[in-house]
Each structure stands twice: as C-alpha cells, then as structure tokens.
C-alpha cells in the first residue's frame, strides 16, 4: 500500500516552473464505493503532477462529509491555490467551493459535478453514457442468451451519489422502452446504500426469493455485480443470468472471463486524471486554460467549462484492451485458474 502515502514533493527537473506555481489539493470521496479512487485516480494524478513538477496533496474523505470540509480547510491553510474535488454531495461540495472562492482559490469538479456549485471547470466521463452502455450491454447478453420476456432486476448505486442517478438515467433510457413494449419485464429494484456490497448480497438474495425468475441483473458497478453473482452461484444460476458492472476492476474482469458477468464499463481513468491535472497545473501557474466543451449545470443554469471522456464497454472478447491500456496488469488479473482463461481471451 504505497499508494496510500500522500506525497508532498517537488520534483527538481522542473523546479523553475514549480517556483511560481501554487500548490494543488485533491480530495477523493471514499474507498468503498469503488476501488478506482485509491488504485487508479490517485496513481494517475500523482504521475501527472510529478511530471509537471508541482506541489500537490491528495487526500481521501472516506465518505465523511465533515471530514471532507475539514480536509478542504486544511489544504487551504497549508497553502493550496487550486482544489480539485470529487464531492460527496453537491451541498457540502458547494460549501467548499464557496469558501475556497472567497479565499481566491480555484476549484475543479473532478468526476462528479457539484450542482449549483459554480466550479471553474468540470472533468469527468459522460456518466449517462456509462449507463447507456450498461443497458445496451445487458440487452446484448440477454439476446445472446435468447431470453424470452426476461425479468430484469436493478441494483442501483448509492441513493446519495449523484452519478448513480445519471447511470440510472442512462440504462433506463435503453431498457424502459423495452419494458414498455413488453419485450422485457421490469423486476425488483433497489438502491444500495453506500454501495455496500454486503448489503447488496442480502438485498439481491431477497429479490431472488421473491421473484425467482429473474433473468438479468443490471448492477451499477463491479462490486454490486459480484454480490449478485455470489448469490447466483449459490443457486447454480451463475453464467445463466447476465450481470453488468462498471469500473473494470480486477474482480469484475475475472468474473467476465469466468463467464459469470456479462460486461463492465471501462473508464480510462488515466485520461480523466491527465485532463484534470493539466487544468489544475495551468490554474496553479496562474493561467486561464480553455476547456474543449461545456456542461449546463441544471440547478444554476450556468455553463461550466468541461472535459468529458468517453467510456468503453468491455465484454469477454475485449478484456485485453484494458490490460493493454495498463489499467490492470496481467499479473493481478491472470492468477491461478484465470491464467488459462486469459490465454483463451488473448491476453498477453
């Protein structure tokens, strides 16, 4: 766990640039909603900042919004001139943005947009698109399985996570028409508090008891997907009921290779991190960078300059893309029994 250690370093190569540049503070939200924050985002951001030779400080609020604000206070106290935040909710996010602004500190919304917050920039994936890919993925797998009027269950993300709302909007956009047309049947639906995988297991077990004929599961990310797969396995239904996911975690990819999971959505976090870091570094140097597009904040109605990345759907046949991208290493993925499946999937 070296990644846990936050580095406050100045790289000597670009000391001249750093001399003028201010310090950048990054606040990550938690480590239980997804593995990505600590394993991917932190790593890629650190690399980007080191390369730019700026001082930085990355901290994780661990799903505690009081801590989130305290960390923001402390970063400003420590001399940060740019903050990049993944908010826990728009309200506390806005409080941080307001306080920072009043002190002349610029703020970038990273991955999650702070509604009504008025951040200087927004960097993310197209989250509705993520949901769309999941919805399309599930239909594809159901078609492959030649399912007839399948009952589809939802395991939504945390009710408090705004991205979860966007994902749902995405997959509803694909699946709702099919429910309406009668091709699919809408099954039970639950939002999993805090993306808690243990709770998700019991929730899904009870869905299945109440509605034994569930034929497809839209799980909002790989952790929730794995919880559903465990229950399906117990009932001998794994591989027969397709399950979706998100984040291309090692666990999710292994489940795909094993045939238990239908698909996941790969978000090339490196791109997101690089884009965010680029904006932050520019701001820290006192520049006014321009963004490629903009997003309309539905609450304030203002346009926020934005950089939006494209997510990619991953099925068994293109798991190798994720490895090739360096997001997951072959060593972690192809352990034990999976070595053979990796070869089969063309991963080298």
């Amino acid at each position, binding site marked *: 766990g070296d990644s846990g250690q936050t580095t406050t370093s100045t790289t000597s190569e670009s000391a001249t640039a750093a001399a003028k540049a201010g310090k950048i503070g990054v606040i990550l939200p938690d480590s239980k909603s997804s593995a990505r924050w600590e394993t991917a985002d932190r790593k890629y951001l650190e690399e980007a900042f080191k390369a730019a030779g700026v001082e930085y400080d990355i901290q994780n609020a661990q799903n505690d919004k009081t801590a989130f604000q305290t960390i923001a206070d402390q970063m400003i106290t420590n001399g940060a001139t740019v903050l990049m935040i993944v908010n826990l909710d728009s309200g506390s996010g806005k409080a941080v943005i307001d306080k920072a602004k009043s002190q002349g500190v610029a703020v970038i919304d990273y991955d999650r947009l702070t509604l009504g917050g008025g951040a200087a920039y927004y960097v993310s994936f197209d989250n509705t698109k993520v949901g769309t890919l999941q919805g399309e993925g599930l239909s594809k797998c159901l078609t492959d399985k030649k399912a007839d009027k399948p009952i589809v269950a939802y395991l939504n993300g945390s009710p408090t996570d705004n991205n979860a709302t966007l994902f749902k909007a995405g997959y509803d956009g694909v699946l709702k028409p099919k429910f309406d047309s009668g091709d699919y049947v809408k099954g039970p639906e639950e939002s999993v508090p805090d993306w808690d995988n243990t709770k998700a297991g019991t929730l899904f077990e009870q869905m299945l008891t109440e509605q034994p004929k569930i034929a497809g599961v839209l799980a909002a990310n790989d952790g929730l997907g*794995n919880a559903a797969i465990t229950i399906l396995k117990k009932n001998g239904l794994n591989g027969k009921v397709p399950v979706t996911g998100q984040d291309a975690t090692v666990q999710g990819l292994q489940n795909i290779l094993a045939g238990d999971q239908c698909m996941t959505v790969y978000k090339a976090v490196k791109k997101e991190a690089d884009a965010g870091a680029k904006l932050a570094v520019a701001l820290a140097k006192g520049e006014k960078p321009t963004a490629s597009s903009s997003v309309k904040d539905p609450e304030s109605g203002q346009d926020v300059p934005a950089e939006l990345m494209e997510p990619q759907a991953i099925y068994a046949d293109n798991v190798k893309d994720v490895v090739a991208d360096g997001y997951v290493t072959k060593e972690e993925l192809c352990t034990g029994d999976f070595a053979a499946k990796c070869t089969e999937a063309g991963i080298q």
Partner: protein
Amino acid sequence: MSKVKELPGEAIVAATQAPSIGNSFRAYVQRVRGGDMGSLPAVLGLVVLCAVFAIARPSFVTAINFANLFTQGAAITLIAMGLVFVLLLGEIDLSAGYASGVCAAVLAVTLASLGLPWYVCALAAILTGVVIGVVLGALVAKVGIPSFVVTLAAFLAFQGLVLVLVKEGTNISVRDPVIVAIANKNLEPWLGWALYAVCVGVFAAIQLVRATRRAKRGLTADPLSLIAFRVGTLAVLAGVAVFVLNLERSRNPALVSLTGVPIVVPVILVLLVVWTVILRRTSFGRHLYAVGGNTEAARRAGIPVDRLKISAFVICSAMAAVGGIVAASRASSVDPNTGGSSVLLYAVGAAVIGGTSLFGGKGRVLDAVLGGAVVAVIENGMGLMGYGASVKYLVTGCVLLLAAGVDALARRRAAAAGLR
C-alpha cells in the same frame, strides 16, 4: 431444578413441590408471570414477526427463504456471540465489526496473494482476532482506559488496517472452494439427519445422566416424564427444521439441486454448545458472571479480574474473526466495507434483544442466537417487501422497537409484581 428446603408446617408454601411435568409447567408459568421471562420475549417476538411476514409475503415461508435466513444472519450472530462475553463484564467492544473486517482481509490476502491452504488462512484470521483481543483487553484491564474509548480508537485504527490490507480500496475475491462453501453450500441430506440424531441423542443422554446422578445424591432431580417431554420437543422442532431444509429448493431442479442444512448451521450450533458449556459449567464462566455482577466481590474472592477481562476480549475478537470468515465466504470477497456500516450495532442489538444486559452480569450465548434471528428475520422479511431504502429503515426501526417492547412490557409487569 431448584433445591427446596423444608419449612415448618405453617411456613410459606414452596414454589415447586415435587418435580413432574405438571408441576414444572405450573412453576414455569408462575415464574413467567412473576417476571423471570428468560428467552420468552425474544421467542414471542420472533413468532409474531414470522407470522406477519408470512401473511404479507407468502414467499417468506418457502424452504429457500428458510435456508436463506440462516446464511443471512450467520455473521452477525457469530459476532454477537462473542460480544456476549464482553457485555457480561459490563464492557463494550465497538471495534468488533471492523475487527471481523481485518480478520476477513487477512484471510483473503493470505488466500489470494500467498496461496496458502484454506485452513492455514482461516487459522491466521482467527489468530489475528486473538492478538487483537489481547491488545484490547490489556489496554482495558491493565492500563485502565474505558473500553468504550479503547474500542472506539480500535474502530478507527482497524478501519485503516482493512484499507492497508485491501490496498486502499480494492475488492479481494475469495475463491477457495472450502471457504466459499461455509456460507454458500449445504450438508448432504443424510449428514443433516446424522447431525440431528447426534444432537438429540446427546441431549437426552446428558439429561438422563444428570438426573440419575442427582437422584443418587438425594438432591431433587427432574423426573423421567419431564425429561421425555423436553427431549421430545427438541426432537420434533429440530426434525421439522431438518426436514424442510432437506426439501428441494432449487428454482431449476433439473439444472442444479439445492437441498440440505446450510453448513453455517452446524458451525453456529457447535459454537453455541461449546460457549454455553464454558459459560455455564466451568469456573471460568462462573467467574465471568461474578465479575459482571460485582467486580469488587469477585476481586475479593480471589478471582483474577484482569486476566478474565483480557480473555473476554480475546473470545470476542476471535468470534469476530469467525464472523468475518463467514462474511467473506458469503460475499466471496472482502472490501474496505467488510465489517463496517451497521454490522457492529446490529450485533450488539442482537445480544441485547436476546436478553443480555449492557451493564454486565446477565446474558447467555443463546441470547445472541435468538437476537440474531430476530435481526435476520427483520432484514429478510423487509427485503421481500420491496420497499425503498427510506421506508425500509423506518419500518425496520419500528419493528425492532416492537420486538423489544414485548420484552420490556413483560418485565414491567413483573416489576409491578415486586420482582426485578
């Protein structure tokens, strides 16, 4: 059961005259009416809950749901069983939840990264629990920091430790077939019946031996009829349970067959029996009650209070480790949330609902199992109802209150009768 001293003719009439089924039953009714409820409220609460859920959702009374109940409640129940020991002393362990997370993470890491055999890894997890217990116990007993503070600090530290072990937030899969089987597989039907036969047989034997031994010494002993009644009740109830669990409950019997007693059931049973014997029939257990009832009196009786406190924390953390292993098995993975969120509160709640006192001196391991069953039935039933998160929280809270209310009102009535 109780030894009655003979009183002069005009003296107060003794509660139990000669033990027989009739008299024992009358004495029991009197005891209950007098306020010594034992586990009745928890059992009553359980029955009411089951009835309500069964009416609201017919799927509640299916074989599959019955089997689900056991696996869903197992981890909490196991942690609660350990907590009983700490609560008996009037102490608390807020860190038991995350301790189970740490131990589960140790299991997952040793399995995944080191590739050791499952029993070595399980042992490592339990040993981790033991070490945790020693440290917590020593801080409480030897240094004298209140257990609330020690375990609050541990609650934080273990959260950090889990993160370190799962590399700051990854999800470690548990794929070892034996470990996964614990919470996901079932005993062969014949094994279920064998287990049943052993349990009922041993119970009958113990009852008989004890009665004859007491009779030989001239102490009041339970009559054969009463023993037969007890053994019969157990045989019928356990028989029905085994029978139902041995029914086919697969959604697709052609594809896969799903029958038998879930493996967690014998795990819980064995631990229940072992800990109950230790609490009730060894001097160690006796001393735990004594320290919880009156620490000073225990100290004056020469009981090594500090050592006892440390042992209680060790048992608690070790049971948390067992709970963690079951949780890891059930989720087939470990993540930073394992043992977190409401695990601890539910476990303490289970012990308390079962009848264990937070102020020490009163409690049984069976309490944890009964209370754990109440908590599991509420979660299970609410899961079937398909409410949204908010309604579910609200209803769960109210149901919990109702279950505890039965108990409280019964005791109230008893207190009004002068017993408390």
